[in-house]
């Protein structure tokens, strides 16, 4: 069973990313949307946590572009149709509201 975890809140001053990384299963993937894209700011704690965790990581390209966040090569930038495909590809989607 695989779960796509979707985060949309800024990782600074918020525990969602930390808790999500703690619970993430081996077959799971993580999608950053909205302010969660700030987790890819280089030199920050969320950036290091994601980089060292080697998680299957996706980010909505337009949300990263809008925030001037560079996408590292270990994350995959996707558009909305790809987001839909990703949702279908996993058994369930867990949105951290």
């Amino acid at each position: 069973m695989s779960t796509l975890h979707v985060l949309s809140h800024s990782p600074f001053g918020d525990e969602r990313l930390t808790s999500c990384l703690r619970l993430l299963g081996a077959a799971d993937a993580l999608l950053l949307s909205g302010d969660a894209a700030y987790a890819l700011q280089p030199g920050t704690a969320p950036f290091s946590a994601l980089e060292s965790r080697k998680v299957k990581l996706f980010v909505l390209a337009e949300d990263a572009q809008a925030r001037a966040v560079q996408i590292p090569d270990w994350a995959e930038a996707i558009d909305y149709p790809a987001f839909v495909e990703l949702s279908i590809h996993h058994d369930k989607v867990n949105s951290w509201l």
Partner: protein
Amino acid sequence: MAKSLLIISRQSPWSGPGAREALDIVLAGGAFDLPISLLFLDDGVLQLAAGQNAKALQQKDLSANLQALPMFGVEELFYCAESASARGLGDRSLDEAQPLAAEQITALIDRYDQVITL
């Protein structure tokens, strides 16, 4: 066969309507005999603290809703052990709630058809 549902409640009891709304989903699901379970995570574990006094805030507390869960057929209640110890959670209400380690929570999420995190 109805789809099974796991609700993950992450809000502290006094931070806004989130905690109550998560409980309402669980109680409604239980009333309709859905296979439904509840996990308290992060600040959500603070909902379990014994001895909360809502009168000081002139609000209703959630303890009555929590105690109703087993009566509504919600048998599986869990909380994240790590979240609880990080917050110094001592005496708990709701004896039915079981502590889970991170890898047990991963397995728990796998078991359910759908997950809602509030």
